[in-house]
């Protein structure tokens, strides 16, 4: 009852839940990740009012972050299109959409790097105050998740370019997609809680 995909058939592996092993594992893993982000987000909320010195209002550039957030959200759309493409067997479009997703993701990460440097220049460092500590660690860990996602999608793109990703492998794209959407949803929460809700 292993993932014996070496035997390439369309027959589903035996499954007590109706989900394949890999997909079930991904869902469970994401459930676990919820608590990780939950812990960091709670920390940020707890410390919002206790922080002294520089406040979010002093450093935030909401229009800019809104723009990069929008771009990240768009990447979920292209991710859906990528999955639809491989399910149709349209490998050229799969690669186009994968690359588009990666580019959107990269834009977001680049925006974050830019934002971090701006904040730093305005005097907000990890060690400045509780706001600095909890902000950088929370958003940094999210950024790391996006980066992992980008590497993952690029790998799928590479496999596909070598013709190693067939229609039967659509689940691999689907699982990467689950992860990607999750990271996006987490960002919606972070953006709302960390940026939008007023002090």
């Amino acid at each position, binding site marked *: *009852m*292993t*993932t*014996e*995909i*070496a*035997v*390439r058939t369309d027959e589903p*592996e*035996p*499954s*007590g*839940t109706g*989900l*394949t*092993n*890999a*997909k*079930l*594992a*991904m869902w*469970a*893993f994401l*459930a*676990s*990740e*919820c*608590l*990780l982000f*939950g*812990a*960091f987000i709670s*920390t940020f909320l*707890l*410390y919002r009012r*206790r*922080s*002294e010195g520089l406040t979010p209002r002093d450093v935030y550039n909401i229009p800019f972050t809104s723009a990069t957030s929008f771009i990240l959200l768009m990447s979920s759309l292209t991710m859906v299109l990528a999955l639809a493409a491989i399910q149709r067997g349209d490998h050229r479009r799969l690669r186009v959409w994968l690359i588009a997703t990666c580019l959107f993701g990269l834009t977001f990460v680049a925006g974050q790097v830019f934002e971090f440097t701006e904040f730093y220049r305005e005097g907000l*460092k*990890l*060690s400045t*105050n*509780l706001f*600095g*500590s*909890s902000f*950088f*660690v929370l958003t940094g*860990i999210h950024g790391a998740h996006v980066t*992992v996602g980008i590497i*993952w999608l690029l*790998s799928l793109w590479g*496999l596909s370019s070598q013709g*190693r990703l067939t229609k039967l*492998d659509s*689940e*691999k794209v689907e*699982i*990467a997609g689950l992860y990607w959407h999750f990271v996006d949803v987490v960002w919606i929460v972070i953006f709302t809680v960390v940026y939008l809700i007023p002090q």
Partner: protein
Amino acid sequence: MTSVSDAVVLPSAEPSLLRRPRATTGFWSWFTTVDHKKIGILYGATALLFLCLGGIEALLIRTQLAQPDGTVLTAAQYNIAFTMHGTTMVFLMGMPLAVAFGNYLVPLQIGARDVAFPRINMLGYWIFLFGGIFIYSSIFLGGAPNGGWFGYTPLTSSPISAGVLPGRGADFWAVGIVMLGIGSVTSALNFIVTILNCRAPGMTLMRMPIFTWMMLVTAFLTLFAMPPVTAALTMVFFDRNFGTTFFDAVKGADPLLYQHLFWLFGHPEVYILILPGMGIVSEVLPVFSRKPIFGYQVVVFSGIAIGFLGWGVWAHHMFATGLGPAALTAFGLSTMLIAIPTGVKIFNWLGTVWGGSVRFSAAMLFCLGFIAQFTIGGLSGVLHAVVPSDTQQTDTYFVIAHFHYVLFGGLLFAMVGGIFYWFPKMTGRLMDEKLGKWTFWTMVLGFNLTFFPMHIVGLEGMPRRTYRYGSGLGWDVPNMIETVGAYVLSIAVLLFVVNLIVSFRRGQPSGDDPWDARTLEWTTPNPVPEYNFAEVPVVASRDEAWHRKYTEDAEGHLVRLPRGGADSGTAVATEPVSGKGAPPAEQGGGGGGGHGIHMPSPSYYPMILGAGILAFAYAAIYHSLLLCTVGAIVVLFAVYAWMLEPGTEPA
């Protein structure tokens, strides 16, 4: 990334970077195996080694405390001793030993040929082993952990430069626990998917053996308990190394946040430790009482109830921190509530033994010892739940007495009983019963000598985590008794280890089913073939193996069925066991079974990936970009190679 790795697999047998290991026997096969049974044994052997290390640390503690004003250890050494003792016993002994049983038994109990993710399974082992080595390596690399297994802030989180906790110990500890947490989560994912997805036909959830049930609950607890502590330790690490102020009260931080996050993990953790033990007891008692478990559903549901309630009680570890009356009341009540499903189980076990034809084998004795001692620990736990009384007890030896009655008297007794019980399945030999009974009585004696007097000195206010006490407080005699007890205990552990080694070499051959047992693992031949079941069993009832052996006549008397399955009787399985008609004694692959079953192939990459993660851990300690790059390259290499090699090589 983990789950894609087993999913992305290619058809062609193209030359991979490393030639695929082929050996499934011999010394080197243990490094690359993906067989859940071998991985289980690796976990078990490693956990027993760490048990010995943790035991030596405990002996150091007790030798220091044997007399007032002890001089064996300095205060600093004492801090290291109890920190490493607690860390070892919880993360390197308790959890892995449960995973060892789970690995070996879960697939066999649910009629599967392997776990859902064999390579991820092995990855979990390597992370555990490397994590343990990492934490212990701190002793040679600038100071061992010394902030307690709970690592309270701001003690542990004060910046390295402040020198509050000398040495890099707290960093090794924080990074090491995060690493072990990653390993535990991978193994939890594997258990969840295996148990939910890979059950044999007919093995419905409510037919699963209780041990498998408890492993499922444990896996969910692990999955959700590790993230909060990972977050907390990340913050500790950043506070120490990168100048964040998460726990710096001067900057307005709340150091109690750490305690909340830690115990949000820590309390479920104690159930992660004890539930597998409860599962083992629930397997052993019925077999040696020749009765089915009393109230199967109740045992299962109280296990699930514990799994849920366990999330609502964490602040009972913080009763003395000034939470305010509302929180104190709520957490006091929820803690009393959780005692109910626990108490219910005790009655289930008693009901199982009651009126049975009991055989007092060593395995049975240890499980009965579990019930008695665990009950005592549970009762002192309920005393802790009463807030005013806990204010007197917290941070005293009374707490030490409590959690050793549940962890040692409970968990470890159950695990030892489990080893006596399943040793024949793992090795084909029986453990020595006589020596086993000696071990049991020595252990009961040593255990109670060590930990019972702690109740008394604890109530008298003897503080824990303190390296010496003055004479004339009336604590001299009880402490001496405790230390003598600890040495008696170490004799018991020694007897057990001797028994393991001698029985492994020269034990009596056991046959396939020496205990006349009830669950599927005992229908496999000894030694269990790599593929477990030549034919995937079709399960028709709870206690499947039993119903394949026995039926009832008109008057309700047990009647043994002819071997090889029968064609009559409603409770009898429709499909015979491996090897149709072959007597179970026939060795592996009887009845032509086993041919053409492709098992997952061994692999180097779990080990390499584990090594990459280890490099990251050291990189974090030394802030070394070089090590970090090395780690990244190794991890990427391992992940890609893993993705490109098929789970199972084409024959």
